[in-house]
């Protein structure tokens, strides 16, 4: 077990790449993670999140580049020698051990004394609300409880880094919500670096902390979550950080308006300062709603292609000038497929991107 230093413990990836055969799984990447930070790796399936996490943990070796931790070069140090824990999407527990023994196993391997093991196991079990299940086997537990056991086992070791690879993906959505609410609490007050991989932007937003958006093996942007969300560096980052997908269109900006084909939309506040020209605009789905949000909102309509209801929100995909745009609004608003949807666009939050996909300042 490592002791704790007094200076901030930084974990650094320096120009890491990962190639398997002819395929590049991770393009040249550099990243600095601070001690005690919560970092989300956000990206679609096959974006490279798992590959990156395996490199961070020491399960896989980078093809080139270095990994540094607390001022030491740990590239090539295998995972058994590093102080890391991992939690997987499939609830991985030892099937013939009880919950208690599962949680205790890393401590037993480390050779700690029995009373110390007992104390730490019970402490973590209490945190994860597993105390009534300590004697049971994993196959007697529900999915959520099994995953809690896996998380407890990761936490009890007091690792320097905890990596979670889409740990909630196999749970019912309500359980997922509950566990997600509790997750920050498990890591509060610990010094470890948490890296959490997910495909859902909402999870990244809920956790706060830092987020790295990944796309096709590249980290397109890294920073404080709220900043990245509000000010994406480029169109790719904006797309990764959007579910349902962000609405885009190529437009001509002239003065106070943008033109999408024949459609004219007024430009909100700060965006008026952007020079005229051709741009790609990005409008988030929740800025298109069935009711008028404010006086400047523009009216648009389109034929409904898909209508979805999800509990407390409604989404409708509609056809606009040959493209499919999405609107997301609170409440239940059923739409008939094939009918014309009349919607309002709040233009105050439009993002502008130049033709190289880089964001232009002044949009927000």
């Amino acid at each position, binding site marked *: 077990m490592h002791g704790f230093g007094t200076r901030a413990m930084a974990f650094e990836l320096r120009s890491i790449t990962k190639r398997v055969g002819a395929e590049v799984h991770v393009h040249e990447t550099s990243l600095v993670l601070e001690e005690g930070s919560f970092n989300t790796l956000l990206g679609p399936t096959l974006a490279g999140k798992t590959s990156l996490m*395996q490199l961070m943990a020491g*399960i*896989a070796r980078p093809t080139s580049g270095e990994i540094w931790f607390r001022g030491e070069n740990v590239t*090539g140090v*295998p*995972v058994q020698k590093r102080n890391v824990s991992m939690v997987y999407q499939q609830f991985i527990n030892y099937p013939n051990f009880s919950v208690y023994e599962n949680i205790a196993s890393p401590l037993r391997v480390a050779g700690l004394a029995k009373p110390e093991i007992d104390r730490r196991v019970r402490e973590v079990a209490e945190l994860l609300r597993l105390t009534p299940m300590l004697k049971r086997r994993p196959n007697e537990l529900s999915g959520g409880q099994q995953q809690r056991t896996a998380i407890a086992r990761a936490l009890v070791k007091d690792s320097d880094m905890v990596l979670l690879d889409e740990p909630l993906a196999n749970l019912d959505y309500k359980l997922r919500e509950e566990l997600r609410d509790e997750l920050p609490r498990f890591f509060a007050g610990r010094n470890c670096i948490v890296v959490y991989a997910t495909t859902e932007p909402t999870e990244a937003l809920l956790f706060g902390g830092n987020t790295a958006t990944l796309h096709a093996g590249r980290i397109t942007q890294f920073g404080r979550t709220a900043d990245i969300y509000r000010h994406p560096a480029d169109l790719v980052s904006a797309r990764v950080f959007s579910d349902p997908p962000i609405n885009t269109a190529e437009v001509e900006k002239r003065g106070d308006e943008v033109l999408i084909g024949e459609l004219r939309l007024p430009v909100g506040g700060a965006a008026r300062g952007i020079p005229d020209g051709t741009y790609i605009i990005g409008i988030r789905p929740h800025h298109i709603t069935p009711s008028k949000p404010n006086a400047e909102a523009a009216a648009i309509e389109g034929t409904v292609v898909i209508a979805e209801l999800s509990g407390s929100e409604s989404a409708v995909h509609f056809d606009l000038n040959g493209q499919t745009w999405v609107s997301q609004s609170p409440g239940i608003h059923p739409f008939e497929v094939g009918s014309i949807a009349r919607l309002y666009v709040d233009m105050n939050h439009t993002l502008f991107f130049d033709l190289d996909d880089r964001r232009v300042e002044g949009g927000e």
Partner: protein
Amino acid sequence: MNKLTNQRAWWFVLPVVLLVAFNAIIPLMTVVNYSVQESFGENMFFWSGVRWFEEVLRSERFHSALWRQILFTGIILVIEVPLGLAIALAMPRKGPWVSVCLVLMALPLLIPWNVVGAMWNIMALPDIGLLGRGLNALGFTYNYTRQPFAAWFTVVLMDVWHWTSLVVLLCYAGLVSIPDAYYQAAKIDAARPWAVFRYIQLPKLKYVLTIAILLRFMDSFMIYTEVVVLTGGGPGNSTTFLSIDLVKTALGQFDLGPAAAMSLIYFLIILLFSWLFYTLMMRNEAR
């Protein structure tokens, strides 16, 4: 995923490597050595190149042993594989009888092979054996020590009794792993039992059947103990299969050279046939 290599793993493998070296590779090399030399006794060896190989491949005796072997293996496969599959299909998959059936099926496999041979030897005796006496009572003239056909019949029967269980257990394991949903879907589709077998069970058993056939092929091609104890290779030559012929040559006549050559040819034949079988059964997977 590119795993970091763990050098310590080699130490774990070392004892096995040594064991294999002593028990297999070194004796194999010795055989190869003998097969290319000629000896006139008293440890005098002369290089003879491919002479023994030519002699063996031209020998009448070798050819007849080979044909007998191929015939035997063919009959065995044709009987044991469908029979084993049929029994596996009939065995219950859930409930209290499962363990009973499994134990019954495992029993023949647990008996030492020479005991199997001895059992059938006595049981098939025409005067005091249950089988022999019974068959004769039914009107057949049955004496496996005198009649080649009866000898074959007994040998085949013994092998089927002894080894079908292996096929049964393998197929059973394969059947049990088919998820219920397939059977439910077949019910909903109003499929008849034959269609369920042909379209669900058989395709899903493909790998298991390949292994079963391969195992039975290799084992039956090398059969020795049970047959020797049962018939000694007789009457005459009628049940002298390849292994038995090989041992007779090597030990009976102390012709190490030809025996060694025959072993190698034998080994290569099995390798060739196994490879052919395997490729044939697996060719669909190449897609």
